[in-house]
């Protein structure tokens, strides 16, 4: 099969639009690579995790839990919760990709990342009839995928050379701090995040899994309540 010019043009447009996102992603990938090895994964496991999971925030979030040998169910629950934003993306993307074959839809699901989703949603409003828009999505996403794999590999192999005494595993927690900051832009989410942190501390006497899950539930509840008490502040951002 030959590619049509429209497909190639859309692919290139998506890749070019996404290229600036690499600036933010590459250092992040290197840190994730270093942190995975510092947490005790083998180099092969760290590379496999980047390829199979392909979700930077979930990869970093699981590491502090892996170090303290949390139950595997807790680590998987954490992955799911941190990735819940993808459920929203999936709902937005589904009508755009509905006409494609199942392998295409599987590929585009696997390769979804925040930045390309945001660009795509801005470029193609709901109901857009452009027949090549999935090539735009693929172009941007493949570029980000390649950048992520290359940069985590650098971190994985550089990480093995760094002495343990430097406490580099702490970099994953610092990375989470950098990641949570843009998420807590509105007041309701701040209250929710503070409640989650507080409950996580108070619940330290509970078995570890219960404490973490209770903290997340409390954070969501407080965040929703705060949004309800001050609805104008939240919608005023639009």
């Amino acid at each position, binding site marked *: 099969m030959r590619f049509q010019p429209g497909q190639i043009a859309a692919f290139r447009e998506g890749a070019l639009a996404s290229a600036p996102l690499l600036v933010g992603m590459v250092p992040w990938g290197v840190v994730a690579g270093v942190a995975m090895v510092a947490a005790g994964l083998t180099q092969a496991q760290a590379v496999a995790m980047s390829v199979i*999971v392909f979700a930077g925030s979930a990869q970093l979030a699981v590491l502090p839990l892996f170090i303290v040998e949390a139950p*595997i169910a807790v680590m998987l629950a954490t992955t799911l919760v941190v990735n819940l934003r993808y459920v929203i993306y999936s709902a937005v993307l589904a009508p755009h990709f509905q006409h494609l074959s199942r392998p295409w839809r599987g590929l585009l699901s696997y390769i979804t990342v925040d930045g390309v989703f945001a660009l795509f949603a801005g470029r193609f409003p709901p109901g857009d009839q452009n027949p090549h828009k999935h090539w735009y999505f693929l172009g941007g996403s493949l570029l980000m995928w390649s950048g992520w794999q290359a940069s985590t590999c650098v971190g994985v192999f550089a990480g093995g050379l760094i002495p343990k005494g430097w406490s580099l595993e702490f970099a994953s927690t*610092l990375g989470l701090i950098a990641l949570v900051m843009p998420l807590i832009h509105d007041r309701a989410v701040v209250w929710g*995040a503070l409640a989650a942190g507080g409950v996580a501390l108070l619940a330290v006497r509970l078995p570890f899994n219960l404490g973490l899950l209770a903290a997340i539930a409390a*954070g969501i509840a407080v*965040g*929703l309540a705060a949004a309800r008490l001050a609805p104008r502040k939240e919608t005023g951002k639009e």
Partner: protein
Amino acid sequence: MAGDPSLGWVLIAGMGLAAFCARAIFVLPGSRLRLPPAAERLLRHAPAAALMAIIVPDLALVQGAWAISIDNPRLVAGLAAFAIAAATRSILLTIAGGMLALTLVRVLAG
């Protein structure tokens, strides 16, 4: 550190499945479903809550006990990292500044 390497592989496979399911839930079945607004609001609050529930104990607990004091290098470095992240929004500066703070506090303490 996990002693058993097979645990890492189980974790990776499970996380891969969880990450794929979250992304594919509407796209793969070719669904026309729309999320109800209440569900969307709930999903928006979850990631920040989860991240904070991981970050705070990692900073403020030492071997499972509260260590909320200026003598806890991770807590001091973490608070510095929050300040840097708020001011610069830079991942690189946040991590570099946090590691620097950790090292400084350890050197000064002992």
